[in-house]
């Protein structure tokens, strides 16, 4: 999924394709690439960092659910429709 979002971001920001291509211009053979070499390329790594920041693959700590149409009120809080929400072990809450 990170590659999908990377490809999307680069398609939306073609100037970054040019920057990456220029940074990689010293390399000609895909088959001999070394990750330890690529680790030294600032633009490549900055793009990967920014992609992971914008789209963290494991965005939330537990499985989330989407609030249905009309939203919902829980414990005095209104949660709007469409919001991705989390809940924690309500069934062992000592206050209910």
């Amino acid at each position: 999924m990170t590659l999908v979002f990377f490809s999307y971001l680069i398609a939306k920001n073609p100037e970054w394709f040019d920057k990456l291509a220029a940074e990689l211009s010293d390399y000609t053979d895909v088959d001999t690439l070394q990750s330890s070499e690529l680790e030294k390329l600032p633009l490549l790594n900055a793009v990967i960092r920014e992609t992971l920041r914008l789209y963290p693959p494991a965005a939330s700590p537990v499985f989330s659910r989407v609030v249905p149409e009309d939203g919902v009120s829980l414990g005095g809080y209104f949660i709007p429709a469409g919001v991705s929400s989390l809940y924690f072990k309500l069934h062992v809450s000592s206050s209910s």
Partner: protein
Amino acid sequence: MQVKVSRAAWTICHDPELYPNPESFVPERSPPPLLPPRIPKLADPRTRWLNLSRDEETQLWDQSMIFSYGPRVCLGKEYSPLPPTPPGRWKRGSAELIFRMALMELRMLVAALVMKYTWTGVPDKPGRWDQEMVPFDTTVLHPTSGRCVLKFALRK
């Protein structure tokens, strides 16, 4: 009382106080203020995100929680190697750890893609690609539309 604490990487990574204009793609952005400054020079705002050392990057990953942190950390996360253990004195937690699978794979794939291809987006509904690509979170973040159609061409 054993209190459990949790956090969402999404919330941290999109906090406008840490990352101004959090929804914008800005690879050259400055790193967020790190807390507490385990690496003091990162407090220097002139340090650009582009020029992070491996230690600095590790700290950034720790703080952003993208790979989580602690015993259940993602094995794909980048670690700095710990000091080597004296021979014959192996101790739990002191082995030299370099787990960098996810980032190594990403670097190789990203470099190979850029070296071999150019590409453009082919949205289902032209002009509405951004809506199609709004991320949706169930276990692994993915586009709301469930797809991202791209047209690749071999580079000359």
